[in-house]
């Protein structure tokens, strides 16, 4: 056998081996990711109403999606979701950057500080939500005590106000996940060679200039990654709303995932609920693709 042919044969063997190694992972991804997505898309083309089995499960094509476009509740939930995603992601990135810069400082007790900052992220969201619900309470909430002290008559019912209720849900999310964004950004910070700062300092750059011209550009991959993760996660907001407000008052905090859950599990409109789920999937997909196009360089710089 000629050497080249032998090499090709062994390459083929390598390929089989590689697929063999990937198989378990692919199996589980297919089982737990692709199958549910495909199944949701399939269900969303049918009218399935659990409470009315006599109607059968007729195929309705895109009728569920057409209804969705004309459903005022769904459109409000879409608007709320977008508002939540935009506000929470931007705030989390900003706060995350500050947290990362603080954690990067060589101060005493740094490891303790790092651990403490991660606590909000480690607490289950249901607990976080319940905690913020208590903090915002009109009768015994800490927020009212902090703002108004003993002046009980001035206490406000934050979660009873449509504007503040949505703000409260955003705030709770920011409190919970800023440190996660901070962790990703910190990893980026630590890859910046000290020589770059050194050189800038010798050139006479002050702290602000060094931050803008050295730190920020070098952080772009980490920032892009944090943005991508946080955006994808924010679109799937559910538990905060479920525990804090149940979508109220007056649907002011209803978000798509919660709306889809209600349609599917509480009301038994399986096809329509699946259409809502597919809409969320499509949104996350679209936003991720846009990010990938814009931040391709930043995200894949190492690979290129």
């Amino acid at each position, binding site marked *: 056998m000629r050497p080249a042919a032998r090499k090709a044969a062994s390459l083929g*063997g*390598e390929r089989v*081996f590689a697929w*063999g*190694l990937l*198989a*378990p992972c692919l*199996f*589980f991804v297919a*089982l737990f990711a692709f199958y549910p997505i495909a199944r949701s898309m399939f269900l969303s083309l049918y009218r399935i*109403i*659990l*409470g*009315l*089995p*006599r*109607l059968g499960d007729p195929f309705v094509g895109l009728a569920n999606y057409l209804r969705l476009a004309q459903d*005022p*509740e769904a459109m409000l939930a879409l608007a709320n979701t977008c508002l939540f995603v935009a506000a929470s992601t931007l705030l989390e990135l900003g706060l995350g950057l500050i947290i990362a810069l603080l954690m990067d400082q060589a101060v005493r007790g740094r490891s303790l500080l790092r651990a403490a900052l991660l606590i909000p992220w480690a607490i289950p969201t249901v607990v976080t939500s319940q905690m913020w619900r208590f903090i915002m*309470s*009109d*009768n015994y909430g800490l927020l009212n005590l902090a703002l108004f002290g003993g002046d*009980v*008559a001035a206490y*406000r*019912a934050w*979660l*009873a*106000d*449509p504007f503040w209720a949505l703000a409260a849900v955003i705030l709770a999310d920011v409190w919970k996940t800023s440190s996660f964004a901070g962790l990703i950004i910190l990893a980026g910070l630590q890859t910046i060679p000290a020589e770059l700062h050194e050189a800038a300092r010798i050139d006479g750059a002050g702290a602000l200039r060094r931050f803008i011209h050295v730190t920020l550009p070098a952080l772009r991959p980490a920032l892009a990654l944090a943005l991508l993760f946080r955006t994808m996660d924010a679109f799937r907001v559910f538990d905060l709303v479920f525990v804090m*407000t*149940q*979508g*109220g*008052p*007056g*649907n*002011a905090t209803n978000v798509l995932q919660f709306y889809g859950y*209600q349609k599917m*599990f*509480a*009301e*038994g*409109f399986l096809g329509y609920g699946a259409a809502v789920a597919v809409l969320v999937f499509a949104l996350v997909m679209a936003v991720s693709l846009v990010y990938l196009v814009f931040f391709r360089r930043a995200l894949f710089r190492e690979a290129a």
Partner: protein
Amino acid sequence: MNPFRAGLPWIAALLALALCLACGDSSPPAGGAERAGGRIVINFVTWKPNLPEVWQEALAGFHASHPGLAVRRQIGPHSSTAFHDLLTQKLKNRSREVDVFLMDVVWPPEFASAGWALPLDAYFPPRERAAFFPAAMEANTFAGKVYGAPFNIDTGMLFYRRDLLAARKWRPPETWPQLVEQARAVMADEAGAGRYFQGYAGQFKQYEGLVCDMLEFILSAGGRIMDPETGRCLLAEPRALKAVAFVREQLMGRVAPRGSLIYQEPESLALFVQGRALFLRSWPYAWQVSNDPQKSKVAGKVGMAPLPHFPGGQGRAALGGWQMGISAYSRHPEAAWAFIKYVTSRPVQKLFAIKGGRAPTRRDLYEDPEVLAAQPHLAEMGRSFAQAAARPRTPLYPALSRLLQVYFSRALCDPQADLPSLAQSACRQIDELTALSREARP
């Protein structure tokens, strides 16, 4: 040879294991438990009893009087929604492990329409049904057939501070405007004395309780949510609008705290038992809690009355409670009915009333001297049960309820919102639901 290649069989083995785990069914084969010791087993899907001893006594009585039958309880979660999920899952799968089940008061139309609940007309003659509260029987009836027997009953009631009303020589309010008037006067006095005090505590969060509270206001103004015959939405009619406007303009942020918009039962009860509210709209359980010195600062100062009404209207209270039904897939419907008949019988209802304080569903027990001697407050509750009103009946109740919740919550939380147009938009969606469920009529 590549040393890692030796791993291939292992990967294959792991894959095979994963497949087994994914597809395997570890549940034991069912069906063998149909008869236990020669007795027919009645599977009863219920929630964890609040009063285990009373249930023990009742079951022991059943087994003693029905030697051929044995009840096996399957305990589900206490939350109504979670219990609904569990029970409907079993029924969707046509489980043979369900004979008798409990239904929340709004479920019978859904269970009937889905074909899960057996019509009980053959077992439960009209003469028998007349012994129960009419609203409870109405809730168990759908499209002319009866699907459940009432096990216990609940309604909205008005609790008030007897001491504060008595000090002013006032009787509990009979109309909603009177309630507002009394609340304003007492609030002014309490505020003058430097105390934080509210007039009215109710449940106005966007959830099922909001539907109950608002249904009571609308019915007591002579309005309706839906026409019971045609199912047409009547929220945009003047009387229904008037009731909603009254709550928004006279109660919300005035005699009731704006925080009521996020109150469920526990928050409103907390305000009342802390001595911070004159009136409370709640369910009968609030009587025990607010009179328990361990839990309440106003124990012994609480009065109870039927809910007020609007001038010219009639007080109506939202009906709650649990019903007993038989699965359409049960193999022993006669045995199942024997069990339901026993639990809803006069002696067993009396047992639950005297030993457990549970409100019985049979009307004549509210005149029974032994019951009244043991639980004197039941007399007042009986008056409320008699004026109870069932929530709208539709197999799509969860969807209807959510539309109502959104409408009411939006109407109450925004003082500027245009009520008629909100109501019309809610009605358009509700009428669509009605059309859908009519399409599915047999």
